[in-house]
């Protein structure tokens, strides 16, 4: 099982630009899918999860700046205050950067808890911004999407690791 004891990840040297861009685009598409309104509070933020993955495995390609722009795109899609998700993404990816070297070597089941914390950071920043911008009502059960996000992390990790580790073999 690669998920329990993954082989040591080689430090990648080639560029993954296309892979990263396509995976982020697909994550955006997942966010824009027409979800049933009763289940919306369970929907994790796929764009943030994929950004987290690349921030952990390719910190040279996805950093705070990219996260900020991706957050801005999410703001457009959500009709939220412009800058709300951008701020939350930037703070979250900065936090990832602090622990990147440790997370890089963790197997995904050990990454799950930090990922939950990062998703909570995102949720908290969103809550603070929305409160300051004048939204008084904050349904707290929406924070549950961080847990579903953590569960999605395993699936995403398997898919993205396939893409991530396949590319060099094809090239060489």
């Amino acid at each position, binding site marked *: 099982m690669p998920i329990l004891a993954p082989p040591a990840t080689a430090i990648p040297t080639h560029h993954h630009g296309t892979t990263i861009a396509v995976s982020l685009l697909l994550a955006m598409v997942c966010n824009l899918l*027409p979800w049933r309104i009763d289940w919306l509070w369970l929907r994790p933020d796929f764009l943030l999860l994929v950004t987290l993955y690349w921030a952990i495995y390719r910190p040279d390609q996805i950093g705070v700046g990219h996260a900020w722009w991706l957050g801005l795109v999410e703001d457009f899609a959500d009709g939220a205050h412009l800058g709300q998700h951008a701020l939350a993404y930037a703070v979250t990816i900065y936090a990832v950067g602090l622990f990147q070297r440790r997370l890089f070597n963790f197997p995904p089941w050990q990454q799950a808890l930090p990922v939950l914390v990062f998703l909570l950071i995102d949720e908290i920043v969103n809550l603070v911004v929305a409160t*300051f911008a004048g939204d008084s009502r904050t349904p707290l059960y929406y924070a549950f999407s961080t847990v579903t996000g953590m569960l999605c992390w395993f699936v995403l990790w398997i898919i993205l690791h396939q893409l991530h580790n396949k590319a060099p073999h094809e090239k060489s």
Partner: protein
Amino acid sequence: MRSRPPPHLTLFPHGLSAGAKLLLYLLTSILLITADARFHVLAFLRTTGNTLLYPIQVTAQTPWLVIRQMDTFFTRQQLLLAENKQLHQQAINFQIDAWQLQHVLQENQQLRALLALRNRQSLVSHAAAILSIPRDPYQRQITIDIGSHAGVRAGAIAVDDSGLVGQVTQVYPFTSQIALISDKDETTPVQIQRTGEHAILYGTGDGIELRYLPNHADIHQGDRLITSGLDGLYPAGLPVATITGSQSNSQSFAHIDCHQLANIDRHNHILVLIPDAPRSGTPH
């Protein structure tokens, strides 16, 4: 052999430190949020961003549309025949209603002319598909697939077959955003159908409630609320909600919970009603 170490492994990376970068982006975000939430000056940026997002939104929608079309394709013929028959029956009933309505409309116009009342505005309706429902707990909004190209204007109202859905708040070239009546910024002037009493329906973010009705107001569970048309924006008589319960607390106003009649979850199409003549109304 590697010719060049990845930047994150170099000892002295060039450029700004991560902390400085974060600070820069934090400040930019705060500027953006302030400009957007307090001064509402970023409409152009919003329009551009949403127009660029439109292709992705349509792409996201495509698999569902294909699945639904396949589903329709394999529907049994018997089912279709039965439905067809039922729709025929319904059409005949509606036709009879329409004749009566025409008669009543004529009569109404004459009466209004007699009383020298302002004529009612006629409405143009556009069918629209729901593109996406954003997962922002702070806003209850949906995105639909028609925009200013189809003549949608901010302030137009949206209905489905069972009642009022909401009001158009943002118009982009190909899409528009509708605030549901449960959005916390939405207020709807309504009338209790049974008694004719006027009231204002407030969205609370996760529901709707009637406010500022006195404790002794004549209200029963199951009472229907319809739009009163007092603000000149909503046409009168659209079904909006039913009353689910009221609690009279120590204050002088009753707390009345309502249940929205429109159900955007059940189908993917709604109707946008646009006033025929351009008017200078602003959305609430």
